[in-house]
């Protein structure tokens, strides 16, 4: 049994290298191209209809699965595992069946419209674009999520069969489908609730960081297909790479809910927002549109400092000055600025 990702002598055993992603939330359009790219590539098999290994939620909101932020799991501060809630099928959002036959083949196309056969009560993105706040100061932002390929994965520790492991070469967390018996303790223990259950195969499944693509020098599908070019991919320890620069050098990329204790390897550049408007339509600078307490709840206390850095670097650019950080976030050259280690075009990869 590999010790990587487990606690040994009071320390989490780390892989040789760790792959990570940085999502710049200021660039996310909420277009779901990432989710469709992933779906098309990985989750079209039997039992995977309702799976969205990458999903883009609107925040503030319930997320996917519904209420995941209040569902426990992860670790206490002293390292003890924390009990977690199992999300239901409806919490994840089921794949609705549509009346294709009726509309397209039964001659009812003029009488009815395409709609789910049963009236849905919830879905994987039910509260999209709702957000919070009152007009004209309402607000929301998009939050793309994948498995965080944590340094100390709660799922890996929870599995009684050691079916989940963390790769030595890149820290990707994978479920061994031959060992998995569908017990679902991982789904309870994962505080980010990014593990799905395949009812047809009686196994748990989740994001695999597109490891077969990486091994051919191709970036994960969600990152490569992202029209906003906001998903940076690379090794956390590479001082020349964008991940290190954003997370460690500029320190503008923050983990989501670090208090869950699993040390996630997906980082977020937190969202800025337009200014608030006062009663007469004037700009009200007295407080930010997105309440800072809300952002602190997601990204921790350092979010204030990060937003200040982003604002001051943006101001530099507005004044016509140089900003290495802005250049980094803009991604002038694609793909070499965004996933320099995985620039290959999948259309040009030969199988075998």
């Amino acid at each position: 049994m590999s010790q990587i990702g487990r606690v040994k002598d009071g320390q989490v055993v780390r892989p040789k290298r760790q792959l990570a992603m940085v999502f710049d939330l200021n660039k996310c359009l909420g277009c779901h191209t990432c989710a469709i790219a992933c779906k098309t590539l990985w989750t079209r098999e039997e039992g995977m209809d309702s799976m969205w290994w990458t999903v883009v939620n609107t925040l503030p909101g319930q997320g996917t699965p519904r209420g995941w932020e209040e569902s426990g799991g992860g670790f206490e501060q002293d390292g003890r595992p924390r009990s977690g809630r199992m999300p239901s099928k409806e919490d994840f959002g089921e794949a609705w069946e549509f009346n294709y036959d009726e509309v397209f083949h039964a001659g009812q196309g003029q009488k009815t419209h395409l709609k789910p056969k049963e009236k849905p009560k919830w879905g994987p993105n039910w509260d999209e674009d709702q957000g919070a706040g009152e007009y004209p100061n309402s607000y929301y932002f998009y939050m793309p999520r994948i498995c965080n390929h944590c340094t100390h994965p709660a799922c890996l520790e929870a599995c009684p069969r050691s079916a989940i492991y963390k790769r030595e070469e890149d820290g990707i967390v994978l479920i061994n489908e031959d060992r998995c018996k569908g017990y679902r303790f991982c789904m309870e223990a994962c505080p980010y609730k990014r593990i799905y259950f395949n009812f047809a195969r009686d196994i748990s499944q989740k994001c695999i960081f597109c490891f077969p693509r990486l091994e051919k020098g191709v970036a994960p599908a969600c990152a490569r297909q992202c029209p906003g070019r906001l998903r940076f991919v690379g090794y956390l320890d590479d001082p020349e790479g964008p991940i290190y620069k954003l997370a460690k050098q500029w320190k503008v990329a923050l983990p989501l809910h670090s208090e869950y204790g699993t040390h996630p390897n997906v980082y977020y550049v937190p969202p800025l927002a337009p200014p608030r408007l006062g009663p007469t339509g004037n700009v009200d600078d007295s407080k930010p549109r997105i309440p800072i307490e809300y952002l602190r709840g997601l990204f921790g206390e350092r979010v204030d400092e990060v937003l200040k850095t982003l604002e001051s670097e943006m101001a530099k650019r507005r004044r016509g000055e140089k900003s290495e950080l802005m250049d980094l976030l803009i991604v002038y050259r694609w793909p070499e600025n965004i996933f320099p280690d995985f620039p290959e075009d999948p259309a040009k990869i030969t199988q075998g």
Partner: protein
Amino acid sequence: MLAKKLDISARDLGDPGASAWRRVKAEPVELAGAPLGMQPSAYISVSRAGKTVGRVNRLQVSSIHNGREIGFHLEWEDPTHNLEVNDTNTFPDGAALLFPIKGDAPLITMGTESQPVNAWHWRADRPDRARNNVAAGLGTTRVTDEDTIHASAVWLNDRWHVVFTRALKVPAGRDEAVQFSVGDEVRVAFAVWEGANGERAGLKAFSPTWHSVRLET
């Protein structure tokens, strides 16, 4: 326990409603909840602390062989009837027999690397077969085949009646399945999972000691 020798067909042997099963004496087997301290993941121990593990505390077991096949009839009270996995938080009822394959395999750890055990595992969501598993320690069970052990289950009057049948000898390698000989005594242990209580994996009721079964000559 005596595995009574009766001249009955494999079909009757495998039918929990067959009259033969009413002619043999069933023995009570006391079950205990699997201890949380023995769970192979700290998450399971912590998250189940203070909760009931192993809700079924008694089984009735009987056994018959016909010189070619052996059958085990397990019966227990279960007012809930958990047949399928229809949501992430639903779990099917289940039962298993455990046999040492060789040596003095410890029951509490489900064998060791040098002394593996053989588990026949039935689940209510696949009611007509049991999977043959080998285990060499907690958390190591491995399915080796799904077709050597026949199972048949009936849920009637709030009670499960499950019969496991298998040929006395199977061609599987010595390390993958228990082999029976008429006149011999084998050790066996039992486990039951109550799906309504979220029981799966090591969250189960089990007989903490080996029982012995002698195949009548």
